[in-house]
């Protein structure tokens, strides 16, 4: 399975989706597993990173050896067949003292009338003092009546002194999404989550976070920026539980436009007197002064609005 793999079995629509969700133009460096229409299309492993299919074929296990540094794993999923529904479990076992980048992402092109749906559960076991950067992009395209649905679940178990940075982006074309992220942090572990979300039309997106700060001096920062346009609906739930001497911060900042609806439900619970927890949530429309300022620079009202939204979600 290792070694060179050509992409002859990946068509042009799938290639475009891969580019959107994983920035892939060609065979990526390092380990990868590419799944198209419910099947494994390409895979490569490295001396330090092993990828094995689960026995039931419903996902993969990724094993990263202790001490692996500066390596990356790409595991994009694309669906271009209308009406396809799949449920995938991917487990990442990251050894101690590693430093790796994991790029996931899901792209659905639905040109037909049946709903296409990808549900994925990613579980991360981050070893002691390891550093992981995780990037996940979701993208939908196609003009069929069938919906593009993605429900990602992420579970993170962080051991002592580990560090994880998660970047989750969903900017275009996903009709319905329910995202749930849960993290348990041991002593000295640090988690940073950055989420960016844009919904339009009649899209629905719900994002829920539960972060348990269990170990002494663990910390978490959950930052969500979102824009809801037209008739879309967004729900943001952020729960941080401080169970030890720890620091937790969550921030939800949203721009609301047209007839959209947004609700933000931050919740912080301290079960220890040494827990320092903060939540911030703000929802508002684009300030008129911001539009006027950009118009005085020669932009039209529409250009000004687009510029403000792009900057906000950058």
């Amino acid at each position, binding site marked *: 399975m290792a070694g060179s793999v050509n992409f002859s079995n990946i068509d042009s629509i799938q290639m475009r989706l891969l580019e959107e969700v994983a920035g892939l133009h060609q065979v990526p460096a390092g380990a990868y597993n590419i799944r198209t229409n419910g099947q494994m299309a390409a895979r490569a492993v490295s001396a330090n990173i092993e990828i094995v299919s689960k026995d039931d074929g419903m996902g993969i296990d990724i094993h990263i050896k202790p001490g692996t540094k500066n390596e990356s794993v790409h595991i994009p999923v694309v669906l271009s067949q209308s009406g396809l529904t799949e449920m995938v479990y991917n487990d990442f076992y990251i050894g101690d003292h590693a430093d790796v980048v994991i790029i996931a992402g899901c792209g659905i092109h639905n040109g037909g009338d049946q709903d296409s749906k990808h549900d994925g559960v990613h579980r991360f076991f981050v070893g002691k003092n390891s550093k992981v950067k995780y990037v996940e992009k979701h993208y939908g395209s196609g003009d069929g009546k069938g919906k593009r649905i993605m429900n990602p679940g992420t579970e993170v178990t962080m051991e002592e002194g580990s560090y994880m940075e998660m970047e989750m982006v969903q900017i275009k074309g996903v009709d319905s999404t329910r995202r749930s992220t849960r993290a348990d942090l041991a002593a000295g572990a640090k988690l940073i989550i950055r989420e960016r979300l844009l919904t339009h039309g009649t899209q629905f997106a719900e994002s829920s976070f539960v972060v348990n700060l269990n170990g002494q001096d663990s910390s978490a920062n959950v930052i969500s920026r979102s824009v809801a346009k037209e008739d879309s609906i967004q729900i943001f739930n952020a729960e941080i539980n401080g169970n030890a001497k720890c620091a937790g911060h969550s921030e939800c900042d949203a721009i609301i436009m047209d007839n959209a609806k947004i609700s933000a439900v931050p919740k912080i619970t301290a079960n220890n007197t040494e827990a320092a927890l903060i939540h911030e949530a703000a929802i508002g429309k684009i300030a008129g002064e911001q539009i*006027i*300022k950009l*118009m005085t*620079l020669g932009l039209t009202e529409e250009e000004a609005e687009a*510029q403000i939204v792009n900057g906000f979600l950058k």
Partner: protein
Amino acid sequence: MLTLENLSFGVQEDRKEKEIIHDLTLSIDDHKFVVITGPNGGGKSTLARLIAGIEHPAQGRIIFDGIDITDKNITERANLGISYAFQQPVRFKGVQVLDLIRLAAKKKLAAADACTYLSEVGLCAKDYINREVNASLSGGELKRIEIATVLARGTKLSVFDEPEAGIDLWSFQNLISVFERMRDKTDGSILIISHQERILNIADEIVVIADGRITAQGPKEEILPGLLGTASAVDACSKFYKGGQ
């Protein structure tokens, strides 16, 4: 260059129409550095907003470079060559200083070129170019970035609404030299709303507005002596000293 003809503008207050600008006529010639002063609430800022197109007059015409721009919107006026610096600059989450200067210059400036505009207003460019134009910037920093966006546009007419408001004394000293350089370098006309004696002192022409009307107008040499010691020509340090007493 710019002619305001019989401009009137009012607002609704307690269900009554309150007139802010009364039948005001004013001409700003090419290559002139004009400072408008006068008591607070006299209509100076409103006049600047009428020129930029943020407000529209109830009566009268605005002619810019021979074109009647009375019915043109903010964008159209900006593209014809009018720049406007806000008294309270706007903050943008996520928009970087470099983005704003590029938007102002209307081209994808190299970072080094954008830096020259920041250096011009006394900001160490490399510290600022990638900063977001958000609440992390102080009032003085924002104000200078605001002025840098106007410099980057390099238009025929630049209007500044109280550039000294909200900045500290130290920054104010530098601000004066920014305007002095602009005055020497620019091809266009500069219109500044200000109470500051040191800004009035570098004007070619001073216009005094009170109660929505022009009460005095002429070369600096004629007008400034009569204003000294009044609220229309404040010494930069007077508030500072008063605060120390």
